[in-house]
């Protein structure tokens, strides 16, 4: 839902980042207001996943230029856990398995860390069990998964549901979902998308990172951004995604080539 007067939650300005020695993001600009759902699309290697990792503060990525503010404050100077506590959530494309660490305990510690930040009281084991059982319904997950180790031995679909369960518990203001649709069969996709729709409201925002239309059939975005070579090449409404679906990404390449040619011609301007 687009409301021009809604508060800005996330403001990304000229963001550049690299991993090891490789520059990946080369000037990303994006404004996200409360109530909005954004889809970021693009080919593999366009920088979509890097953008999500940088927003969550992954140590392997270094920001070399630009800024990211979250509700007016500099997000980039915060540790990953602080970002999570103030309401930035990353749903991983490949959630890691953590053998030995109980999923239930993990969810409880994480939820309480977020609640402390929000000024809510800490939930004891019993109160938390009640909460988690209620939220399990959002993703139609079997409570048996609570007794297992974090993501250990989960199927691809179960891992993604566990991600959305965490989102349901942590109550983020900005949820970044990185390729949440990858590896899901049609039923799992429906459940996951249903969860995201249920959790979206006028106060929070969602950033969907995907390269398929099929997730957007289930979750209607307010904005669609096309990423290529580390920046956002074009922004439009949901019809842009349909256009991509029909025409493929070739026109993106052409547009990009044209842009790069223009830049080569005027090196002085670029510098």
């Amino acid at each position: 839902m687009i409301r021009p007067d809604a508060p800005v939650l996330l403001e990304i300005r000229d963001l550049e980042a690299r991993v090891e020695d490789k520059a990946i993001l080369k000037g990303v600009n994006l404004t996200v207001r409360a109530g909005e759902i954004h889809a970021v699309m693009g080919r593999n290697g366009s920088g979509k996943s890097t953008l999500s990792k940088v927003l969550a503060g992954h140590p392997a990525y270094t920001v070399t230029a630009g800024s990211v503010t979250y509700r007016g404050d500099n997000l980039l100077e915060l540790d990953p856990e602080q970002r999570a506590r103030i309401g930035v959530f990353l749903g991983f494309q490949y959630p890691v398995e953590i053998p030995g660490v109980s999923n239930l305990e993990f969810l409880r510690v994480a939820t309480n860390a977020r609640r402390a930040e929000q000024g809510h009281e800490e939930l004891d084991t019993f109160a938390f069990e009640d909460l988690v059982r209620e939220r399990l319904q959002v993703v139609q997950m079997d409570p048996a998964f609570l007794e297992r180790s974090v993501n250990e031995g989960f199927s691809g679909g179960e891992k993604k549901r566990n991600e959305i369960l965490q989102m349901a518990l942590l109550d983020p203001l900005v949820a970044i979902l990185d390729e949440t649709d990858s590896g899901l069969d049609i039923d799992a996709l429906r459940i996951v998308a249903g969860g995201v729709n249920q959790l979206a409201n006028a106060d929070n925002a969602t950033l969907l990172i995907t390269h398929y239309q099929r997730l957007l059939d289930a979750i209607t975005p307010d904005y669609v951004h096309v990423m290529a070579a580390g920046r956002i090449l074009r922004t439009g409404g949901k019809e842009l995604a349909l256009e991509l679906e029909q025409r493929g990404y070739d026109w993106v390449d052409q547009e990009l080539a044209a842009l790069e040619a223009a830049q080569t011609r005027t090196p002085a301007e670029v510098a």
Partner: protein
Amino acid sequence: MSSPQAVGDLVSQPYKYGFVTDIETEKIAKGLSEDVVRLISSKKEEPAFLLEFRLRAYRQWLQMREPDWAALGYPPIDYQDVIYYAAPKQQAKKASLDEVDPKLLETFDKLGIPLSEQKRLSNVAVDAVFDSVSIATTYKEKLAEHGVIFCSISEAVKEHPELIERYLGTVVPSNDNYFAALNSAVFSDGSFVFIPKGVECPMELSTYFRINSGDTGQFERTLIVAEEGASVSYLEGCTAPMFDTNQLHAAVVELVALDDAAIKYSTVQNWYAGDEHGVGGIYNFVTKRGQCRGDRSKISWTQVETGSAITWKYPSCVLQGADSVGEFYSVALTNNRQQADTGTKMIHVGPRSRSTIVSKGISAGHSANSYRGLVQIGPKAVGARNYSQCDSMLIGDQAAANTYPYIRSQQPQASVEHEASTCRISEDQLFYLQSRGIGFEEAVSMMVSGFCRDVFNQLPMEFAAEADKLLALKLEGSVG
């Protein structure tokens, strides 16, 4: 900030039990000789058979060589530079706690082991050993009502000499190994537990060992006997002050389980480990062995080893009875310059005997952590089974993790299975937990305790939390 270095820093934190109790102590002169052995025996007013036992062990010890096969390095120990007997100056053991020197009670209070009637733990009976002497045992009377004997071994020698004579040295013979021989010659105090036929011990039993003197060796001796159908859960805890010299600790623990008996023996070992340069700390050379003599008997060892400069320890089970069960669950954490060579022996003699080994080693700093185990299936152990799992977690690239599992089988109708793996705390796992709002320290600690979960689950409930806390404590510290 979530670099391996930061993880390494986390494992370093000051030792919390390093204080010394200022109390007058009676010590004998340094050194070991036949006269010293006789002196110890006479101080304890022992019967002749025990003096004989000690002297035989001493003579055997003189003929033996200190073992050098473990992956441990330490300067030679001067056995003449050790005091073999030290006791707080209060005469004999007091009938009532009120008469015990308040300084001693205070010491144990400080260690989290309150002994006084008002404060003592409600479901755990404690035998508190200070240097060479047991100073108090709680709940003795209540246990006696059930026929359970729980007292210091010195007391048992006086009150129940026939039991001592019958069982002492029958599981670990005095010439078993160098350190066992030394212990048999000079052992000072320790606990004795006897659970008569058919009795399920009504509460947890626990011995808390405290080394206080700087130049004293500690040589406790523990003997636990569970008669037919009896069962007991026993816990041992240990701490020592921080000295910049090394102290020798050579204990012997013997367990005997008759038909259908079960003994669960848990240890949370937190002796002083020395400083980050490897100065000081306890040399811990311990022989622990249980004999499942009876059919369907069961002995289970659980250990959480976090302290000592040197650990040389292999709690073992001799599975003689048919269908007997042996278990070994171990967490060994080494940091700084600590060295641990620890593991178990499962000797399968009886048919259908079963054993399980779960060992988790965590090495950080410049430490060395070795698992050394033996699984032996004898020719008569038809249908025996063993399963072993040995995992190592490495923190930093200066620490060593070694695995030496010896397997011998002579019985085709038996199966042995051993698995081992190594892991580290990966950057991706840390980031995942952090991105859910969990702080770096807590994330590391969660993963370490997750790694140890299978072992902690075996500890008696009261102590599982304790062990988790201890590990978390060892992991506490400045971040990055």
